[in-house]
């Protein structure tokens, strides 16, 4: 049995490499999943939060030179942390070409447009299928399945939205093409695709559901930080 005796948390070694390979086939991972993965890889040596932080820091320093980063985002669905390995070299068409064909890219762009410009930040699976132009429905179905599997899209009750991973990776693209549809949440400062629009006419602020929830928990009321109007309780 092989033992990786020369591995430590803060020096890049086989543990970190193993982690990186795991992230290749697991584009997004929850905080719990991350803790388990790192624990399993290190034979239970890495257990507490500080060790994990150091481990991640070591990984991030290393992958920086590749134009990659391990980023953490909060899910727009439930507010929970999600970690993803993303490309930080900004709008690289070549990378997109590697993962998708031209036809598939066109479909993906159309999907993103539809999702991002919608009021709720999601679309029905049916609507998604109907967006397939010049592509047989079966192919579109297969592509949608793959997009969900690879954490570009997230499915909840037959509705499709952008996965946290996609938002982390595509932020520059979204800001460039859909700036006014993805305003920054007043609470966390991150862009908002799925969120709650302020009801006040002309305000236009959009905030994450989970961020508003935190405000409610802390202050008992939910107020728009931009125009100061009270936001009524959602059903």
């Amino acid at each position, binding site marked *: 049995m092989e033992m990786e005796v020369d591995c430590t948390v803060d020096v890049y070694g086989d543990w970190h490499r193993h982690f990186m*390979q795991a992230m290749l086939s697991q584009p997004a991972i929850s905080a719990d999943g991350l803790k388990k993965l790192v624990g399993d890889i290190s034979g239970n040596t890495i257990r507490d939060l500080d060790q994990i932080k150091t481990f991640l820091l070591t990984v991030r320093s290393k992958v920086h030179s*590749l134009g990659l980063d391990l980023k953490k985002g909060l899910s727009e669905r439930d507010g929970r942390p999600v970690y993803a390995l993303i490309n930080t070299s900004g709008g690289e068409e*070549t990378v997109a070409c590697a993962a998708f064909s031209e036809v598939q890219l066109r479909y993906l762009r159309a999907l993103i447009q539809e999702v991002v410009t919608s009021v709720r930040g999601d679309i029905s699976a049916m609507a998604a299928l109907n967006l397939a132009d010049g592509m047989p429905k079966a192919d579109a179905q297969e592509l949608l399945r793959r997009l969900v599997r690879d954490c570009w899209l997230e499915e909840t009750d037959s509705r499709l939205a952008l996965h946290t991973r996609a938002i982390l990776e595509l932020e520059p693209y979204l800001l460039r093409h859909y700036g006014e549809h993805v305003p920054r949440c007043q609470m966390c400062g991150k862009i908002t695709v799925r969120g709650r629009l302020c009801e006040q006419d002309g305000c236009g602020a959009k905030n994450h559901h989970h961020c508003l929830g935190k405000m409610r928990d802390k202050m008992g009321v939910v107020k728009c930080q931009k125009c100061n109007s009270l936001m009524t309780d959602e059903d």
Partner: protein
Amino acid sequence: MPRGRPRQSQNGTRATQDDDDGPLSQSLSQSQSQTQRRSQRRLSPVEEERLAARVVRYVLAAHGRGEPLRREKVRRLALEPQHGGYVNQVLQAADVKLRDVFGMSLEVLPNKRDLLLVNQLPVVENAPPLLAESELQKHGLLVAILALIFMSGDAGVDEDTLWRFLSKLGVHKDHKHECFGNVRKLVTEEFCRAGYLRKEEEVVKGVTVLRFFWGDAASVGVDAVDLLKFVCTIWGDEVEPEQWQEQYERALQLQEAREQREQARQQQ
């Protein structure tokens, strides 16, 4: 697909060497003048680093698509036109980065046209797998098929035999398997396209049948000795790889070929 291999002696393959290397040459000839000529046409370390990172990002995005990674496509898309002449240098640098960061190597298949990512990390018992669940299942199926073909020797395996074998494992040709979907498509198309299997058509009594062999990607990416050991574990405790003389010798040959490739690479 990544495949674990027993750890080989640490001989500095891990690119922790930061020192400037001497003239790299991937040419077959080791002649002095040719080496000198090539050493005059090299990218600067900064450019090499930048382009190697681009290639790595491209390769990672294409990885696991189930299609062979074409060297030509990498050159066209990841490198800029003025860098076309430096492909080997950049691929070499990308390989170094991939080994260092991911513990994977970028291999060139014998056809010189395709590239393959191969896991170089030692297999650690009880460690979590390097692949996601769905990929693991596919990999398991592929290994079973490769083992069958390997044990059958140079003749390869005809489609009938293959399906009879697989049905014993609960995988049926016409079933829509819960993990693999259309199995026939997976085996005859995806595995072949990715280069893990090679298929040949032959006409037997007026009927066209398929015959399967190991593909180039399998020869490069799968350790035959490990595979033989795996076959032995299925047969039972007392069986040793050496007992299958013919297959064992062939496995050793493949292993030796791989080691020679590694050595040739390190000498550069």
